């Protein structure tokens, strides 16, 4: 039997993907979940796995083609079944036609209506369009719990089942806009390997998409069971025991073994190493790949405007034309921060972690967000409500060679400097390798973008809409500053100074609040020991 396979939605709302490469050829035997193609969405390069065991019958697109989601892009001959010319959708409902009525030939034979005789438990109440949706998604309606009256199945229920979740209120979209600049290896004083930019993140739930990442995902638990020796090992490796992924449980709680700690720590090191290699090799991160050179005599060249670039553009437009932007500028003396980081850097390296300035800035931002919760809030236009969030997920705008992305560090308020550093290094690496999953690009509540890497002092970053604030940080430079000593004597000294550019949504935040928020960030950066209290 022939099974047609349609390109699944590889992230919430993704409409199409570009076929980068086929991983199989016609005639190849494949097993279920074996990757068959690499497809680039507007977020990431993903491998699409085979839905069945069988043989590849036909590849419907060529590498480089853009495939709309929902279009058949590969067909399989399903193992053990005769080939057929027509596809059979995956859903497998039973026809509900009962042969009632008397046998034809009997006098008075009449066609009576079908009488589907099933137990009530098997009876599914859903309208025809919802049934069609379920067939399109290959979902058995009897497996869905309806949210409609009396358990009636709605379109939203099917959508939720298709994306692997339950029906929720409007999921927060995650488009962002941030000033786009690339950021090379930091100078002695420059801060981070993260770079400014915009990214978009769309949720992708429940899809059978496997990102290329080989690194271990961080877990995010509040509580972990482990032997004391394991905890010591985690400490020595510089990893947070609560972030170590594990499938093991004891008494219903996650249980981490020494091997899991070593595996996680090694993955972290590899991720950071890869990041470092990229930077040391001087690869032009942040520069989109250029197209072909001009042919001799060619005055213009047209290229498709699509993929990540198009998505970024759309997000920029939505942000700029929805939220009235105001940008507040200031500069902060971070001499003490530079000294603190220098003291801590070698300690961190002993644990295999490259400590950048970004975790300090994140902690300062989180402290300020707690003081000014409107900066961590969003406007729900549809319901005319302001949604305040008591969680702090910080997006870090990152330049990649296909454009800008915003990996998200979840619950930054609950993580230490080293954990923030190691997780961020890992995410940035994955973003640059385009192996980052859609889930790692969504859910930020505030975004930080580093615009200082290439040059310039100040920026007017565009909000990672619908967030209410975005902070652009400039390069840390040595500058002459007027310093007043304890006696009140003024002198000019070389100090380490960083510029701050805070854009905020003026619908929600007034200029005074923006300035106060910036002042709080500055206070923590000027006096990094205050971070110990956070």
């Amino acid at each position, binding site marked *: 039997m022939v099974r047609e396979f349609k390109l699944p939605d590889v992230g919430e709302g993704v409409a199409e993907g570009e076929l980068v490469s086929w991983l199989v050829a016609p005639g190849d035997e494949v097993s279920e979940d074996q990757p068959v193609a690499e497809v680039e969405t507007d977020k990431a390069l993903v491998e699409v796995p085979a839905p069945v065991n069988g043989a590849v019958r036909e590849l419907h697109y060529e590498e480089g083609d853009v495939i709309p989601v929902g279009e058949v892009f590969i067909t399989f001959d399903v193992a053990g079944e005769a080939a057929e010319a027509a596809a059979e959708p995956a859903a497998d409902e039973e026809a509900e*036609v009962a042969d009632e009525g008397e046998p034809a030939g*009997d006098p008075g034979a009449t066609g009576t209506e079908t009488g589907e005789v099933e137990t009530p438990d098997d009876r599914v109440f859903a309208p025809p369009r919802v049934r069609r949706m379920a067939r399109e998604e290959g979902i058995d309606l009897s497996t869905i719990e309806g949210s409609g009256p009396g358990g009636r199945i709605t379109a939203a229920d099917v959508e939720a089942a298709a994306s692997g979740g339950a029906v929720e209120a409007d999921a927060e979209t995650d488009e962002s806009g941030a000033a786009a600049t690339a950021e090379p290896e930091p100078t002695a004083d420059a801060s981070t390997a993260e770079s400014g930019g915009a990214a978009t993140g769309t949720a992708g739930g429940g899809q059978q998409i496997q990102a290329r990442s080989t690194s271990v995902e961080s877990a995010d638990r509040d509580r972990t069971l482990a032997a004391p020796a394991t905890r010591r090992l985690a400490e020595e490796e510089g990893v947070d025991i609560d972030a170590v992924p594990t499938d093991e449980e004891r008494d219903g709680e996650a249980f981490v073994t020494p091997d899991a700690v070593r595996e996680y720590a090694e993955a972290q090191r590899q991720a950071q190493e890869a990041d470092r290699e990229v930077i040391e090799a001087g690869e032009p991160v942040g520069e989109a790949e250029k197209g072909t050179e001009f042919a001799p005599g060619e005055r213009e060249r047209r290229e498709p405007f699509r993929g990540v670039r198009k998505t970024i553009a759309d997000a920029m437009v939505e942000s700029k034309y929805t939220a009235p932007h105001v940008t507040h500028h200031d500069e902060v003396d971070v001499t003490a921060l530079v000294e603190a980081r220098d003291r801590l850097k070698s300690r961190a390296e002993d644990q295999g972690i490259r400590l950048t300035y970004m975790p300090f800035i994140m902690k300062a931002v989180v402290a300020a967000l707690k003081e000014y919760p409107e900066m961590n809030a969003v406007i729900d236009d549809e319901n005319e409500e302001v949604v305040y969030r008591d969680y702090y997920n910080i997006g870090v705008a990152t330049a990649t060679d296909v454009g800008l992305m915003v990996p998200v560090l979840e619950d930054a308020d609950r993580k230490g400097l080293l954990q923030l550093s190691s997780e961020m290094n890992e995410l940035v690496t994955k973003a640059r390798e385009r192996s980052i999953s859609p889930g790692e690009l969504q859910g930020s509540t505030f975004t930080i973008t580093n615009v200082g890497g290439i040059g310039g002092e100040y920026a007017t970053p565009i909000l990672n809409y619908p967030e209410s604030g975005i902070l652009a940080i400039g390069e840390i430079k040595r500058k002459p500053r007027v310093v007043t000593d304890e006696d009140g004597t003024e002198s000019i000294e070389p100090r380490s100074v960083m510029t701050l550019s805070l854009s905020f949504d003026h619908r929600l935040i007034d200029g005074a609040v923006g300035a106060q928020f910036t002042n709080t960030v500055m206070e923590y950066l000027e006096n990094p020991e205050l971070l110990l209290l956070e």
Partner: protein
Amino acid sequence: MVVGDVTTGTDVLVVGAGPAGYVAAIRAGQLDLDVTLVEKDAYGGTCLNHGCIPSKALITATDVAHEAGNAEEMGIHADPAVDLAKMVDWKDGVVDQLTGGVEKLCKANGVNLLEGTATFDGENTARISHSGEGQGSESIEFEHAIVATGSRPIEIPGFDYGDEPVLDSKQALALDSVPDSLVVVGAGYIGMELASVFAKLGTDVTVIEMLDGILPGYDDDLKRPVKQRANDIGIEFHFGYTASTWYDHGDGIRVEAEPAEQAATDGGQAEAVEAEALDLDAEKVLVAVGREPVSDTLDLDAVGVETDDRGFIETDSRARTNVDHVFAVGDVAGEPMLAHKGSMEGQVAAEVIAGEPAAIDYQAMPAAIFTDPEIGTVGMTESEAEEAGFETIVGTFPFRASGRALTTGETDGFVKIVADESEGYVLGAQIVGPEASELIAELGLAIELGATVEDVASTVHTHPTLSESVMEAAENALGHAIHTLNR
């Protein structure tokens, strides 16, 4: 390959242009498939040419005459004269308009039309024999085939439709004069509809039925008003008889009927089953004992398609036969033999061929009988719902309590709604009464949408209309009917 054949190719070969086949062809055309539709007789199939449409036209026309002649109560005194030949001409005009429309629609949707009889030659080839001497034949190669050959009236031993006084339903609808007397063999929906037509035209109608009541398969409470009305207009019934033979005695024909060998019953409508043989004199005899699939003209073996022991082609929920690239839709694909069921199957088959996620997954298949009064049903009866394990609630509303029904003079019958007690979902409905065939549609939609009786009861219905009766029945199910006593 036959010498002289011309071979053409097509994505989809549709055999039969009835409501299943032509819908399949049009839908396939809409989906950018190359479609060839083969029809040996007339576009529109039995439904448009010899079934649903002409019978409804004649039922309507005879009702006009009958009502005009029976409206003294309204102060109308008339003795309508019926010119059956003219009535049939009018009916033929309606049919022509519709069949012409089907042809135009097919062409407009890019369907290639071929006249002839299709037989399969192999897995992917068929031969189309053109009617008419010297017309020859042609071969056609297809990727997919949709068999939509429909059904034909069943013949019973001793009654050959080729004999002049013996009529099938098609011939009965084409008579140009009203017979003085008519024996109808079979009290199913076709027999009952046509018995009413001729009784209202003044024919003495006698119905013989093998079972013990009319309309096998329908609940007694639905049948009762129909049987009563049939008696009122002079139709005579003999239950428990089978027609054995007929002969011409010079002054008409005599139909002989014998008691049915087995005491067949249909669930207990208490009709006295006679034991004596019957001799019934009449001018014509109409045989309406059911229909059988037309699956023996196609050489299905050549393509490998199997049929059941009754000749129906077995299909799955996507109208697919045991051969992956061959589909079957409509009457030939099994009960219930209803035009709208065939049309739906035709759409599904076309969409499946085009790769769409279509399936036959209706929750309820409506059915209507154009007897007097009409019957409309959809979904489960009360007993079917209980058999299926539902705790049921039932709401009814009699048309005699409907203002609009009273104004039409048609107050026999009722609306009955069956629902699930725990959640209130509408599971089925049965209506007997004026416009039952139209009224049932609302309840079909209710079932498909998963509506509850409360939803139906809370939907404002126009006053004064018959449709209010549906709302009232739903209210009755909830125990708060306004215009009838709650049970």
